[in-house]
């Protein structure tokens, strides 16, 4: 295990010594390196998980792949760095990684005082509670006096304290840094409850329950106690790079809205629809405005897929998680996923 404090210290040293001549040149550094450094979590099924070959997969991972496809025309040009909730922000502040896709919630403080920029929302989430069925609890209101497992340095930790304070209940936190150690402590019964984003609870319930117990021995309580808009994080200072990250995600959403998929994108190149021609760079302009190849959206959709494809494959109906799209439906279908126009 990497010692967090040592990592923080290393980040600070990098920060203290990094030359100011680099200001606003994150994109140049990425291009020169030939790969995007993407910080991800330790391992959460459907969002960010390395398979047995060490290949990272998941909805969050797909956003990094989309950015690499936009910049290099190749979604594989990504180097992944697994980070804990404690390490992720110092890692991006110091330039150790270019982008963090660690299911980080967009908050005012993080966007300002931490020197970070959130470029959008790839998953509208909310915090909930996972409990064993044997606990016999039906509502979060019944959790007074419970022992709660939670990750440090998260919005989760703060919402938890807020929620119990607001409802005049007490709790005992057990705060462990690595997400797999938290899950182990929860499944061993050290805590009555595990709390984090509902998406991550669904992943834990689907993929991490140690046998002989199964999925069915645990329930996610109905209360959603917070708003957790999860977004890509870059460091403040290079707005061109931030724009590319922002629009790479929008491109996935816009492609879905126009029915462009990884399967039909080649035919779509021949489309007469002026909007689709602009999106796919048949009518040039968008790529130039961002300072990248005109075929950037084509590359993203061809190699990564549109937002709906990525959602269904990783966390939705075609995955073991079977998460309902809910708030993450397109705006045209009653959800919140909405891309500003491509023009």
């Amino acid at each position, binding site marked *: 295990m990497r010692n967090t404090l040592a990592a923080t210290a290393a980040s600070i040293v990098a*920060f203290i010594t990094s030359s100011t001549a680099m200001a606003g040149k994150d994109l140049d550094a990425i291009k020169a390196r030939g790969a995007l450094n993407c910080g991800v979590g330790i391992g959460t099924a459907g969002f960010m998980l390395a398979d047995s070959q060490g290949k990272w997969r998941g909805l969050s991972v797909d956003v990094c792949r989309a950015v690499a496809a936009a910049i290099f025309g190749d979604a594989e040009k990504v180097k992944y760095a697994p980070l804990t909730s404690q390490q992720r922000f110092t890692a991006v502040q110091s330039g150790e990684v270019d982008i963090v896709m660690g299911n980080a919630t967009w908050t005012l403080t993080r966007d300002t005082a931490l020197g970070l920029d959130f470029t959008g929302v790839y998953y509208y989430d909310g915090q909930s509670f996972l409990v064993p069925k044997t606990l016999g609890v039906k509502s979060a209101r019944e959790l007074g006096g419970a022992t709660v497992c939670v990750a440090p340095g998260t919005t989760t930790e703060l919402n938890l304290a807020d929620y119990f304070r607001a409802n005049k209940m007490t709790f005992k936190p057990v705060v462990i840094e690595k997400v797999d*150690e938290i899950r182990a402590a929860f499944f*061993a019964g*050290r805590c009555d409850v595990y709390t984090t984003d509902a998406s991550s609870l669904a992943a834990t319930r689907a993929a991490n329950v140690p046998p002989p117990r199964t999925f069915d021995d645990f329930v996610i309580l109905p209360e959603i106690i917070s708003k957790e808009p999860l977004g890509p994080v870059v460091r403040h200072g290079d707005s061109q790079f931030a724009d590319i990250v922002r629009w790479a995600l929008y491109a996935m959403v816009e492609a879905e809205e126009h029915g462009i998929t990884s399967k039909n994108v080649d035919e779509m190149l021949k489309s007469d629809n002026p909007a689709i021609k602009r999106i796919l760079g048949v009518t040039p302009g968008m790529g130039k405005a961002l300072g990248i190849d005109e075929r950037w959206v084509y590359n993203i959709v061809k190699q990564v897929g549109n937002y709906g494809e990525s959602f269904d494959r990783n966390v939705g109906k075609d995955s073991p998680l079977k998460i309902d799209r809910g708030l993450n439906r397109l705006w045209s279908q009653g959800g919140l996923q909405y891309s500003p126009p491509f023009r």
Partner: protein
Amino acid sequence: MAVEALGSAPRTKVAPWNDPTVRGWVFQVVVVGLVGLLAWYLVDNTITNLERQKIASGFHYLGREAGFEIGDTMVEYSPASTYARAIYVGMLNTLKVSVLGIIMATFLGTLLGIGRLSNNWLLSKICEWYVEAFRNVPLLLWLFLFYKLISEAFPGPRQAISAFWGTVFLSNRGVYFPVPLADAVFKWMGVALLVAIAGAWALHRWARRRQDATGQPFPSIIAGTGLIVGLPVLVWLLGGAPHHMSWPALKGFNFDGGSVIQPEFTALLFGLVLYTSAFVAEIVRSGILALHKGQTEAAAALGLTRGQSMRLVLLPQALRVIVPPMTSQYLNITKNSSLAIAIGYPDLVASINVTINQTGQAIENVLIIMAAYLSVSLSISAFMNWYNKRIALRER
């Protein structure tokens, strides 16, 4: 000194650039100047970087509401407390585990070190295996192992193992035990305890002097122990012997009432003590082995038992060899306690890390943690140096 001696030789003939004193000064000024420039450059660069990325700076955040809960606190704390308070709570937890760890590792390590020198083959082998096992596996693995053992091996709170006629409960939430309800008398018992300790120490010194002068022994250890136990008990009796207790009882999900030692603390303390005592054992053993064999033989010739010769002749002399390396073991315990975060014990590093994440002010927080560990380390070193001087060989 050599430089001055040279300088006092006829210096009129030496050109300034050949004068070692002048040259020494020039070099020092240049080095200090360069270090100063480098520091100035780094500070300036940091400030520029902070501003460019619009990262907040300064120590104002310390007074803001922390907003997170801490699971194991020695003083009053709630999410409404400040960041400064949260850091203080973490600091106290670090001190608690370090001080207990140092005391317990010293005892256990000394016993193991002496055990390895025992004539009893089995005892000495067991001690040797212990030392080898604990020294050669990284502490972090021991911590994970102990933590897993506690959380997997013990039942949940509803099936807690009860001991001592249902007054103590063991579960994966920790050990719950009854504690006396707060009473004003306890403060005076604390005062009595301090007075008794001072009294016992004075008694011990007096007994030593008398024995040195007259050769008459006095059982000062027994008398002192009696004083330390007796005086607080006397105060308790005089204070009306308050005996209302807070008993642990299952309520909802967890035990309520009494007091608890949590698994995270237990695992960390066990890990630190068992690991460090292996090193302490080696230090003690080599300290004793460093003594001339004649010491043992002379002690035996005087008719001292093995125990007496160990306690009165060998250990006091071995201490001179033992104390200096012991200092670094004590420093190690304090520093290693920061592995707490891996198993969720809320120590100083845990508080600081959360604060860094919630405020983004890494540099300020790392300065605080450096200052904290530095003061603890310097205090330990200062104490050990003082003790080392005290026991140093006095030539008569």
